[in-house]
């Protein structure tokens, strides 16, 4: 029954306009940023010189990371997943479709877990859409700048792993918003609370803890954004390992485990709250 419910949730999801709008937004952003940089460099009045780091940013192979990095949990990816999960989950209380599934004999934990499992697909699709759109646009830019595509320098397997890692970092934000939607039954509270945490509270908290230093700065690394950052340092699109990995960062295993624990905690609390809810009227 779990997979039947996941299938129902996926069907509902793919029929929502908001999913396709957000996917288009993720792709458009990955096209827009390198394109603007490129156009600025082509302008005769521009002071932007296309060489060194700027060229690396918009030309293959390193430009392939652009779309992936844009969709991080503390960036556009977090924003998109919070809006999607908050809207999808809370609206169903208004439409009373939760009641429909439950009164057809679906158990509450199965319904909740199926709903959250269905969110895994858009998390992956957002990053994938940005990666593919960014790859196409920067590919054209690279062709224009260098006259050829250095496709042989791209480690496609590593690029795909980077897409998966980034999608994985979206899960705590999705789970937190899911919890807020279940507890509040309100789209405004779920999306507002999720965005406030993702875009404001977590950033401020990390800055403050870093400023205080010592053990507090270490604690900051264990917030979802800190864990995401640790995992993001492993992202690469070439065979060469990322030289920017900080020596004092968390290990990949710790980051993966930390993100999993946040996700399980938030989803677990959502299931617990949902099991206790009265859904009359």
């Amino acid at each position: 029954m779990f997979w039947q419910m996941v299938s129902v949730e996926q069907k509902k999801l793919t029929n929502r306009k908001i999913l396709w709008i957000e996917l288009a937004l993720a792709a458009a952003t990955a096209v827009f940023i390198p394109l603007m940089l490129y156009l600025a460099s082509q302008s005769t009045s521009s002071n932007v010189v296309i060489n060194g780091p700027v060229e690396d940013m918009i030309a293959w192979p390193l430009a392939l990371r652009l779309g992936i990095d844009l969709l991080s949990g503390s960036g556009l990816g977090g924003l998109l997943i919070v809006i999607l999960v908050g809207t999808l989950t809370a609206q169903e209380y208004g439409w009373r479709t939760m009641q429909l599934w439950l009164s057809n004999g679906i158990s509450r934990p199965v319904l909740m877990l199926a709903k959250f499992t269905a969110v895994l697909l858009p998390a992956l699709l957002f990053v994938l859409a940005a990666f593919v759109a960014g790859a196409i646009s920067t590919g054209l830019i690279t062709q224009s700048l260098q006259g050829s595509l250095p496709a042989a320098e791209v480690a496609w397997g590593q690029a795909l792993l980077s897409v998966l890692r980034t999608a994985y970092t979206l899960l705590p934000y999705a789970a937190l918003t899911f919890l807020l939607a279940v507890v509040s039954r309100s789209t405004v509270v779920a999306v507002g609370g999720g965005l406030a945490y993702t875009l404001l509270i977590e950033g401020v908290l990390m800055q403050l803890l870093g400023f205080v230093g010592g053990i507090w700065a270490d604690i900051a690394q264990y917030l979802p954004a800190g864990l995401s950052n640790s995992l993001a340092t492993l992202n690469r699109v070439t065979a060469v390992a990322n030289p920017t990995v900080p020596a004092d960062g968390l290990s990949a295993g710790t980051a993966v485990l930390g993100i999993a624990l946040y996700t399980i905690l938030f989803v677990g609390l959502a299931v617990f709250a949902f099991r206790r809810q009265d859904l009359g009227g």
Partner: protein
Amino acid sequence: MNNIILQTDDLSKNFGAVTAVQAINLRVQQGEVFGFLGPNGAGKTTTIGMVLGLIHPSAGRITLFGQPVTPHHNGALKQVGSLVGAPSLLPYLTAQQNLQLVAKLHDGVENGRIQEILELVGLTNAAERKVQGFSTGMKQRLGLGAALLHRPALIILDEPTNGLDPAGMREVRTLIRQLADDGITVFLSSHLLHEVEQVCDRIAVIRQGKIVAQGAVDELLNQSGQSVRLKVRNPAQAGELLAQLPAADVVTNGAYVQVSGVESETAVAHLTQNGVIPSEVTVQKSDLESLFLELTK
């Protein structure tokens, strides 16, 4: 004894200090149309919510098809179809897509069944239209269709004719009787008393969270008694005579005297023995509306 498929034992629900449902005991027998009546706020929807595993009971027990039902143990609901309040539908999907989703929750609902249901509820021509553009009546029909899709053994309907025009209401009443004839048990909550009187075999009346009457419609109406209306030359004199009878409740109205609490034969015999001959005698049976008003006043 008939097979009881839905049973509640001392079912109660408190919302904080407010008692919405108090120790109610319902017995719904297989194949019957069971009416659940009560004024607004009497606890009907809360009771149905508990039966459907949507609301946690504060006390008591619900048994469906011999299995206990709670929000944490709702497997028995797979044999139940329900339409409670406004239908639970996804507005951005078409009528057919909504039914397809519900079909996925049950084994053995073939594609042909969806077409059959769309036809049954008169929405074949609107199958490909998104529900957000539907009228209230169309949504109600689709909700009813979704409830019937998996051929449930029990169907729970809360105000199923809301938003329907008179022809639609009659179709739903006919459908309910047809379901019962096919062996499907129907639990019908409605404020339309003539609707309940026409289709229900047995009823329960709830007032302020308590069941105040439960039984076969005819039995309850008979218990509630009948009144006798007599046309006489001198209503005042006839009224005085009838008032002498034990348990008689007499009302005079123009040329008529209405008496309840006594049999028509007793009333006529008493008047004629005293020289008053009625020119017209009508026995008026109590209807569900008067019974309802009496029980819930």
